[in-house]
């Protein structure tokens, strides 16, 4: 299957000195839910705006369904739609907001009405009550849901959601996430969602992409940020409580943040023998999550106040021995800590 998007050497910056996006290679699948994770300021919103053709990029290539996109942006915008991080409504009624894109597409008036009501119902806004409300007569969560309804009504091929639940009430958050799942599973829409809701992503998404300072990392990657000091031939980072992690030395000042793929971390229930250049970190299990996309269990442990993740295959007998609060040992070679 052709990927939905293929990015190659894509660079984007708001200011001269700093690259906001620096993506050497990335492809995004055309079915199911793809998660986009990363700390604030890592470039998630910027990437989603590039993918929805709202923002130009400086250099590199971006293929959409296997084809170059230059010059076709406004045509593609008709099938790709983006829900802003702080979405907002046009100064008109809820009905007119949801109908706006449909009317632009010259949809039949009777169909406009049907689709508006259907979309509002899908996000839990009763059309009889909400369609005639003005834009300023809604709560924050209702604004977000009405804005989502305006996107769903368009029956998009690609739906990009930018932290859709970050600033809404709990009930709205659940309705929004449920609508996203329905959209992907029943309507076959490719849904790409930036979110901090990892448990939801582990359960629902087919793939998780991580971003860190504009670069792609594995989705569930551990980020060990700050506190690195050179010592001898290594870099050392200590955790509160006295444990330390070693990494291989790099040139100059690259050692500010490092990534550690959970797949590179082995889990043991008792402290193993220290051998060679291998880190052993002791901690307590915080939670276990089933990763639907890859048939594995992600083990999160509290190591001196920081959360570290390790990945265990679903069939591994070890899985049966793991439970919250259980003491575990994470084992990973110095060389698996990669500098970002």
């Amino acid at each position, binding site marked *: 299957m052709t990927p939905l998007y293929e990015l190659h050497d894509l660079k984007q910056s708001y200011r001269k000195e700093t690259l906001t996006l620096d993506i050497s290679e990335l492809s995004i699948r055309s079915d199911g839910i793809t998660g986009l994770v990363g700390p604030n300021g890592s470039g998630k919103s910027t990437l989603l*705006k590039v993918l*929805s*053709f*709202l923002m130009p990029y400086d250099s590199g290539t971006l293929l959409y369904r296997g084809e170059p996109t230059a010059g076709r942006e*406004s045509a593609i*915008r*008709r099938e*790709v*739609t*983006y829900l*802003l991080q*702080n*979405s*907002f409504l*046009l*100064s008109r009624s809820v009905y007119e907001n949801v109908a*706006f*894109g449909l009317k*632009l*597409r010259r949809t039949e008036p009777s169909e406009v009405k049907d689709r508006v009501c259907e979309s509002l119902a899908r996000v839990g806004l009763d059309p009889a009550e909400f369609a005639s409300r*003005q*834009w*300023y007569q809604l709560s924050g969560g209702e604004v977000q849901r009405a*804005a989502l309804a*305006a*996107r769903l009504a*368009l029956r998009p091929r690609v739906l990009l959601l930018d932290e859709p639940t970050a600033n809404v009430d709990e009930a709205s958050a659940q309705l929004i996430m449920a609508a996203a799942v329905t959209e992907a599973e029943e309507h076959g829409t490719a849904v790409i969602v930036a979110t901090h809701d990892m448990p939801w992503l582990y359960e629902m998404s087919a793939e998780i992409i991580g971003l860190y300072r504009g670069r792609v990392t594995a989705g569930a990657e551990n980020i060990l940020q700050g506190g690195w000091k050179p010592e001898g031939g290594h870099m050392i980072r200590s955790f509160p409580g006295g444990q330390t992690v070693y990494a291989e030395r790099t040139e100059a000042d690259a050692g500010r943040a490092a990534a550690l793929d959970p797949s590179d971390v082995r889990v043991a229930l008792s402290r193993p023998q220290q051998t060679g250049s291998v880190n052993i970190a002791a901690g307590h299990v915080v939670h276990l999550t089933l990763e639907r996309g890859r048939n594995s269990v992600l083990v999160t442990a509290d190591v001196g106040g920081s959360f570290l993740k390790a990945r265990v295959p679903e069939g591994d007998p070890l899985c049966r021995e793991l439970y919250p609060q259980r003491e575990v040992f994470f084992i990973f070679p110095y060389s698996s800590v990669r500098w970002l």
Partner: protein
Amino acid sequence: MDFIANGFVQAFHLLFTADEETMVILVTTLRLTALSMALILALGLPMGFALGYFTFPGKRALCTVTDTLLALPTVVIGLLVYAFISRRGLLGDWELLFTVEGMAIGQVILGTPIVAAYTASAVEGLDSRLRQTLLTLGASGAKLAAVSLWEARFMILTAALTALGRIVGEVGSAMMLGGNIKWHTRTITTAITLETGKGDFALGIALGVILILISLLLNISLSFLRRRTQN
């Protein structure tokens, strides 16, 4: 103070009997205001939209010019336009001096910067998310501009009403360019000036009451709009 009380009594008489001179003054004012407002909006809205929406070299300078025009005293506008449309002026052949059309030129110069400046700041102040929202819902080109203006509609109406308030209450350039000719170019404000000068308060008060009613109406509408834009 008897003459004032007397003036009020006569004023109501003039208004309720639809005194011919009073009515002609009102109609002239209406004609002048309608003509001026049409031109002010036709010029000011596109100018303001361009100033607020696009970035281009010289934009800052243009904004400064607009802001300066905002503060131009009406007699100076009167003087400048007079110089152009008097017999010896560049546009002398058009015989605009002492006509309603000539007066309209002064009012347009007075009102256009107001509408342009307000529209520019309204469009500039539009939420940065508006453009992205419109694009992602499929709008482009002229539709983008039209919806943006529509989003700013309350601010733009405020601009129009502010300009309207300024031009109906203005006396300096109307006097110089219209000449305050009875039955022809006499407007509410120029008539009040003249009648007061003559010591005839009745007509002055009658027209003054109308002017106050107009500003009251404008202000009520403006405060309604202000509440609307704050939502």
